């Protein structure tokens, strides 16, 4: 009898957990891949050179559809990794000759101003993201602490 009471209590707890989930406002949580701090480029390596990461999308409801885009919205870089002195882009600094590509379930070339999706899905998902950068012998080798840098905007949205 005591067991049945406990069982009922457990189910009440379950209901108490589930009901607010379905009643609460829809939410989305976007976690970008881990930072790529030191990407070493070498034109003698197979091209394009790649780095991978995981973008996590969490949504409230398992049935929520979402979209994920990757863009470079900075007019200075506009899709091209650009010389960075550690605090800002170098005025008149070097730029790689090829724009960066980013792929998940589909591939886009930055800046991707049109905002084409790199992934769409339903419910909580970990999206594997690959950054692809072609390097050539005509790209300038940077000296000192200067690096090539780009800022990628990952935008998630629950669809209307």
């Amino acid at each position, binding site marked *: 009898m005591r067991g049945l009471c406990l069982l009922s209590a457990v189910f009440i707890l379950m209901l108490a957990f589930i009901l607010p989930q379905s009643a609460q406002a829809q939410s989305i949580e976007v976690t970008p891949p881990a930072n790529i*701090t030191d990407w070493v480029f070498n034109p003698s390596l197979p091209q394009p050179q790649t780095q991978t990461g995981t973008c996590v999308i969490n949504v409230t409801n398992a049935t929520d559809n979402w979209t994920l885009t990757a863009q470079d919205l900075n007019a200075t870089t506009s899709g091209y990794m650009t010389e960075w002195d550690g605090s800002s882009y170098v005025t008149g600094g070097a730029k790689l000759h090829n724009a960066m590509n980013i792929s998940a379930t589909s591939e886009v070339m930055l800046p991707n101003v049109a905002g084409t999706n790199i992934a769409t899905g339903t419910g909580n998902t970990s999206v594997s993201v690959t950054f692809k950068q072609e390097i050539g012998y005509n790209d300038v080798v940077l000296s000192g602490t200067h690096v090539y840098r780009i*800022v990628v905007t990952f935008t998630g949205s629950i669809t209307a």
Partner: protein
Amino acid sequence: MVKLSRYLIAFSLVICLLLLAAPVSADPGLKVTGAKCTASVAPGQTITHRMTVGIGESDPAMDIFVDVKGFGQSLDGAYQELEVQDDTSPYSVREFITLDKRAFHLDPGESQEVTATISIPEDVGSGGGYALIYIHSKPTGEGSVGYVTAVDVPIALTISGTELIKTGEITDISVSPDKPIAVSTTFHNSGNYHYRAKNEVKLKDEAGNILATAATSPTSSSIIPPYSYQFKVSLSPEQELSPGKIYYIVSRVTLEDDTLLDTEEESFWVPLPGIDEASIVKVTVENEAPPLIDAVDKADSEVSFNGTGNVSGVVVIAKYKEEPSVPTISFSAPEDKGGTGKEAVKFIEVYVTGFTAGTANIKLHYTDAEISGFVEDSLTLSYWDGNIWQAADNISLDSATNVISGDIPVSALGGTAMGMGGTKIPAMKWSLIIEIACGAVAVILILLVYFLLIRRRRR
């Protein structure tokens, strides 16, 4: 009994724990609650939409910015944040939305509530009202690749008491006849309200037989007016398509409940071997006298028709990269062997379907470089009639404009090549060259002897 109860309790606890663990646990990023607003609102009414913006305990402190943007949409359904100058949609409610805060700082584990006040004017119009609330961080991360984390909150309002029009039209069908056959249908939401739609595509042959079908799921995001969406499907017919034949794509776009929005038919031609695919020009004629087809830019040709009457069908004009392989007799074979007895300059294909009578006048343009080494007056136009290379009727040559033209019965244009050829300027014979060389040497020797004799006399 007590034991059973304990098992049941343990089982229930496990289920509870699993349910609690259901959301994917990961390093927390930018979290927005109230991430969609799909309210119904009357003209003149004001509503509010609350959003909670937060970051996780383990995240670095972050500066957050919130903006109201125009609601744009790309062909794959992705949302585009439009600036004021680009937000020209008649259904935009961007300018009717105000935010109680546009920038704030979040320390780890903190969240802030942002309220959007949406004041709909009386004269808002009918249908839907759209905008995006764009929430984004400052760039984070040092080194090679940094990030901005962002969330678009779609505002998709229904203007209550107004007519909601769900209409649309197919504006383009493009076909890639490779294997599998890739079909893209571009569909425009011409109504005043958003909806999800789906696409069904059928492949038919000239006789109307259905060779393959494919269908998409409903779009994962609604198509917002006045934007377009591009459906993509692949078709894999059981049998290979025949080169040189016309096939038809029937594309049908419906709402989720199968209500028809639009259907369109598009034909495509499967290139014959050796065809330069960049040169293909296809014209569809619907119950009319076929117009002059100017394919000079792509296929060096102009085609006009006589005596066809009003017809429905398709005309394809294309250029060959080399002598076509379909004819069993070489173009340059002697006339009594079914050839033309001429050297080929170039070949084109004119394919016609749906026409039963009349003639086609073909004007083939050529360049001086193409006929270099040919006797221009000898140029001729011939077509492969299935058995022999047949000279076109009424051939005329305009050497001033570099055009040769001729008439070919429409009945012969069911997948046959035609070629322009001519006679080569005869090459100089070696014996003649040797004779001229010997003569020149003899003259030089005579002159040399003559000058030597003159010099001796002077001494």
